């Protein structure tokens, strides 16, 4: 890890507000990306991103400077997302309903491109699988880093990522997406 991040964190710990702004600006894209993929709701993703950064700043002294900063930060964001998702499951109220209607609309309108299909398929995954898959493929964290960030065994993380891939493929195959695009990809 670069010394720049350590220095930035040190400045934040000393109460330097410009350093705090810089820290958020550096990582906001990655944190928001994870939150958006996890929640599939822009406003919720923004709220959770903000909450995650606030929590991170509050507990910055707990970060082990011997380890990478991004996995630690993404772990906080992932946990916040999962908390919100579990709240949604417990309260199938207005927000959730709107999202479901939106999803159905998307489904029945037959997603026009592969990205949308994958996005829809991602939503069907278990939260743990989705988080592990996103951290590995979207943020390109190593299994070791994901294991430390999620505080679970490395083997478990691998299993989650492998299962996530298989379930996504099964979902794409179920919708006939894989068969259609398979030839194009092969052509390429």
């Amino acid at each position: 890890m670069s010394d720049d991040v350590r220095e930035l964190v040190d400045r934040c710990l000393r109460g330097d507000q410009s350093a705090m702004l810089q820290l958020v600006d550096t990582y906001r894209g990655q944190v928001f990306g994870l939150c958006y993929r996890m929640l599939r709701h822009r406003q919720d993703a923004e709220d959770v991103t903000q909450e995650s950064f606030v929590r991170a700043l509050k507990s910055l002294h707990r970060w082990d400077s011997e380890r990478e900063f991004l996995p630690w930060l993404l772990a906080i964001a992932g946990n916040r997302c999962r908390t919100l998702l579990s709240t949604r499951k417990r309260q199938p109220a207005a927000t959730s309903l709107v999202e479901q209607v939106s999803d159905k609309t998307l489904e029945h309108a037959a997603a026009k491109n592969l990205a949308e299909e994958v996005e829809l398929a991602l939503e069907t995954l278990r939260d743990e699988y989705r988080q592990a898959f996103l951290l590995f493929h979207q943020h390109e964290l190593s299994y070791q880093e994901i294991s430390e960030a999620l505080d679970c065994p490395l083997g478990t993380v691998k299993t989650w990522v492998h299962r996530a891939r298989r379930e996504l493929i099964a979902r794409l195959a179920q919708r006939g997406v894989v068969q259609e695009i398979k030839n194009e990809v092969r052509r390429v």
Partner: protein
Amino acid sequence: MKCDEFETHLDEILDERRRPEWDAQLREHSACCPRCRDLASAYGVLLEGFRSMKTPECPADMSTRVLESHLSRPRLTFPARAALPAAAAAALFSTAAAILVAVFLTRDAQHEQVALVAPPVAQAPIAQDPVAQAKVKQIEQIKFELEQWKKVPLVGAVFASAADNDKSTDPYEELAKGTGRSLANVVLRMPGIAGPRGVRPLQPSYGPEGVGVWPTQMSDELRPVTASVTETFDLILDTLPITFWASNTRDS
């Protein structure tokens, strides 16, 4: 390579972030197995689709929002220390009171049993100033008293001194037999008896002024309290095994 090994190997390739189509083993097997070829293609499609997914931009004002939220949050404050429960406070108070009384009682007993040695002869004053002389005398007096205090033995010393040579002429033992009290009780109550138990005879000693010097006595206001506590202490001495301990010490 068998079909069941194909997917495992494919997972390993993807775990290492390598492209499946570049792996010779996978390429070789998929060339002769349509099912595995489709599987490899499906993985390729999935990752291709995933990479092409678009994520909306994070709002540019996120950093200022975070900072505002961070600064507006109340700092963690520790809750005020809870008041002691009444029972705990009462226990604490009674313990403190018991220690205080015990200290006074001990000092009182010590005063009675301490024999003070004669003070050193005061030297003739050199200074002619009466105020300075008085001050010097006062200092000498304090020094003398401090020296005497250093000689005050602990109450336990009474028991320690019980191991003595001449047991036949022990007035404490005779008194204990005569009064029906325990030996320890008698020793504690009458420390001034001269004899083999090692307590020195009570004598006033003399300070630089030629006046009898005694260690500070307990105030009269406390005497009723100490008297009742002494009675309680006697009762405890008569019932607790401490009397056996004292007797054993004496006999050994």
